[in-house]
């Protein structure tokens, strides 16, 4: 669709998490907003009936695709779109010439491994959207459609710790954030209200986290599962490496029981209570879990927002006199595999790049027709410092039934391990308690039932042998699956501009001819020491609880690496951060603390890519708080 003739106060690239929050805030202040979303539309969230936008999606269709998927991965409900492709966990493999059995660290200066055949974009994208250069494959994925990756976020809404903002000052590691916990505290309140977070204030006051006087979360804490309570009882008073292993409820963007807020009113967002579908990722069937389409719907109801789907931003244009942005060029398409149908330019007073951390960096770097280094890249930091919370999984069988596969995917965690003097030496982590048995590490329930019914010979070769059936099978399922559990360690990663970065590929393109992300990624000693500590903590926790430890090679083993002779299998957390980091000066960061580009006065870049370090919390709540902070700054600059 051509919106070239219209003028907006703000043009936002990205209709996902940050884009929806920004659109809602700005439109509520009577600003005229245009949102460009690369992916397909979501039914009911359309402002421009347009014959060129034929493809839409909705929750019922996504659920159907999920039910029919053999591998129920985070991507399984969402079909690939060759004109706005996204990565998939099934594509995460050891990077040639390395293999799962032969992980080798790439020596400095070595040529990149194996070229990838991407002459046919669709066939190539079917093997994986990313051009993975390693030496470790980047393990996290995202979605490109209305609502973005919020379709398959877990719901965890933890605040960052005060020390997370000052890693350099306190532990002499990496960099500080240009803001403090206190600067973000009010925005956390607002973010928790917008998302609808269920949690208990008293329980969240750890590691120096404070709340404003009389603050209550919108909804009461989600009830703990039987597994949570079992771990809580078994680990009471225990410590690991000086850190408490106390089990606490995890703040969640899932609907629970409304609290009476400070203003006397009971919170009500009009959506249903969680039914415990154990399916937050890949999709909540009933939208009891918040997603960004909730906020985008409210944004559209203001009447001040237009959204164009199937509009892929490809170039950010500058007025070379003022160095301000004066347009965003975008390409359109009719179907997810069809050709480009037009190239247009959207114009406004202010511009916000709120695409995914990888897509935002890619767009800034691709926009090199006027400045060879790309937009907002005086510092050279755009696309650099790619980070995740690489995860270590431990799994086993409890001595007594804990009844997994019931309730939300995760309701509790161990947060005591997030901060301590050890952060001068190694990565910290939080420990997520999973309610889905061995589903993640072991493909449960499928793989274990198959092992019962069609057991393989000990050497795993040849054909399955004689298994069990009938009553014996039922007894075996009851005994095994009611005791399955796993824990996951979300491990800190430091910014590493030299070894972890994304650039637009010069040789591989999607179906629209847009460069695909080429990713270089590795773990440093700090993070690998975190993995080592996670493995030791797993042993300690399992010994303490009397757990039969079954930790081994997980089904997703592409993220294998070796450290001190031990193999670890990193999983992606989906927490993609750092690629347009904010900071203190134009020399070492892409934006200021309001997420305004140092280089271009009317350009803001907002999302998890804004985060200078990974911190120790799942980043989504903080991203929301940051989006609201940026919205305030933009409104002040317009008025």
């Amino acid at each position, binding site marked *: 669709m051509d919106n070239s003739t219209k003028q907006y106060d703000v043009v936002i690239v990205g209709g996902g998490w940050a884009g929806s929050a920004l659109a809602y805030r700005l439109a509520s202040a009577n600003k005229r907003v245009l949102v460009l979303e690369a992916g397909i539309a979501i039914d009911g969230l359309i402002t421009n009936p347009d014959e060129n936008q034929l493809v839409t999606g909705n929750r019922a269709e996504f*659920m*159907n695709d*999920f*039910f*029919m*998927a*053999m591998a*129920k991965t985070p991507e399984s409900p969402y079909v690939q779109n060759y004109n706005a492709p996204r990565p998939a966990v099934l594509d995460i493999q050891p990077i040639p010439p390395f293999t799962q059995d032969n992980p080798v660290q790439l020596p400095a200066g070595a040529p990149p491994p194996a070229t990838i055949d991407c002459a046919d974009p669709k066939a190539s994208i079917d093997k994986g959207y990313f051009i993975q250069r390693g030496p470790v494959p980047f393990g996290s994925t995202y979605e490109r459609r209305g609502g973005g990756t919020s379709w398959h976020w877990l719901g965890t809404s933890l605040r960052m710790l005060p020390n997370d903002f000052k890693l350099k000052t306190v532990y002499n590691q990496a960099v500080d954030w240009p803001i403090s916990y206190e600067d973000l505290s009010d925005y956390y309140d607002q973010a928790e209200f917008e998302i609808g977070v269920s949690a208990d204030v008293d329980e969240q006051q750890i590691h120096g986290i404070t709340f404003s006087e009389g603050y209550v979360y919108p909804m009461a804490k989600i*009830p*703990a*599962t*039987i597994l949570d*309570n079992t771990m809580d009882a078994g680990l009471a008073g225990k410590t690991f490496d000086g850190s408490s292993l106390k089990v606490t409820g995890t703040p969640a963007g899932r609907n*629970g*029981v409304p609290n009476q807020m400070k203003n006397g009113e009971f919170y009500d967002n009009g959506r249903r*209570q*969680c*039914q*415990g*579908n*154990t*399916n937050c990722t890949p*999709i909540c*069937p009933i939208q009891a879990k918040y997603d960004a389409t909730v906020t985008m719907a409210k944004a559209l109801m203001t009447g001040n927002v237009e959204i164009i789907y199937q509009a892929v931003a490809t170039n950010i244009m500058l007025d070379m006199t003022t160095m301000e942005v004066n347009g965003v060029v975008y390409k359109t398409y009719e179907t997810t595999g069809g050709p480009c149908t037009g190239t247009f330019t959207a114009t406004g007073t202010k511009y916000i790049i709120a695409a995914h951390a990888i897509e935002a960096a890619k767009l800034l770097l691709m926009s090199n027709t006027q400045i060879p280094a790309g937009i907002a890249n005086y510092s050279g930091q755009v696309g650099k410092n790619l980070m995740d919370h690489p995860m270590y999984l431990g799994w086993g069988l409890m001595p007594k*039934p804990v*009844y*997994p*596969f*019931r*309730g*939300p995917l995760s*309701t509790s965690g161990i947060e005591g391990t997030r901060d301590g003097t050890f952060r001068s030496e190694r990565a910290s982590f939080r420990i997520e308690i999973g*309610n*889905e048995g061995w*589903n993640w590490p072991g493909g449960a*329930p*499928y*793989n274990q*039932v*198959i*092992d019962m*019914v*069609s057991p*393989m010979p000990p050497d795993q070769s040849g*054909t*399955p042998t*004689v*298994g069990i*059936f*009938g*009553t*014996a*099978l*039922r*007894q075996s*399922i*009851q005994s095994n*699956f*009611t005791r399955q559990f796993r824990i996951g360690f979300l491990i800190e990663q430091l910014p590493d501009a030299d070894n972890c970065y994304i650039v637009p590929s010069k040789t591989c393109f999607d179906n629209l001819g847009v460069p695909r992300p080429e990713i270089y990624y590795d773990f440093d000693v700090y993070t690998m020491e975190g993995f080592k500590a996670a493995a030791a903590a797993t042993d300690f926790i399992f010994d303490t609880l009397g757990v039969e430890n079954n930790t081994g090679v997980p089904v997703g083993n592409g993220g294998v690496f070796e450290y001190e002779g031990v193999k670890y299998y990193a999983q992606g957390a989906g927490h993609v951060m750092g690629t347009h980091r904010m900071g203190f000066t134009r020399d070492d960061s892409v934006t200021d603390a309001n997420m305004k580009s140092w280089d271009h006065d009317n350009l803001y870049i907002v999302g998890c890519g804004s985060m200078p370090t990974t911190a120790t919390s799942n980043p989504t709540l903080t991203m929301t708080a940051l989006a609201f902070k940026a919205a305030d700054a933009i409104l002040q600059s317009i008025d």
Partner: protein
Amino acid sequence: MTLDEFVSLSAALTGYPVSTLQPVPDTQQIAATLFAELNLASNNIPAAQLDELTQVWNSISATPPPDLPAAVQEKIIENLAITRLAQNIIYLWFFGTWYDLSKNPNSFTSPNIDHVVSPLAYTNGLVWGEMGAHPMGYSVGQYGYWANVPTLPQIN
């Protein structure tokens, strides 16, 4: 194999009574849906294998209930000519999934014809209820049910 033969054989293989697999009234038609997989040409089931499984089952189906598991063990499960097909019937009921007979069901060897039979076949998979849970993505519980200990189905 007829639908009735399929249901009685399925009861012996899964350990569930016929009244669970094919309730009256049978609003979901799961038995018929799963049975259709045995007649689906694209599943490439060797006709001789299906015939032998049918014949063997008919030869032992009248065995007194206390002795039936032993007969199934000896004549079907330990019979390498038909055990893999029998295993697939178990997977149909527990998962709602058909696994390519030409490969180990736990392998992702590609291409293959592994597939979920239908959304209803998935949500009616027996494995979930067996462990006191629900299919992932299909809960009928109320808020907070997960704090309570479930009652597991009785095994006779």
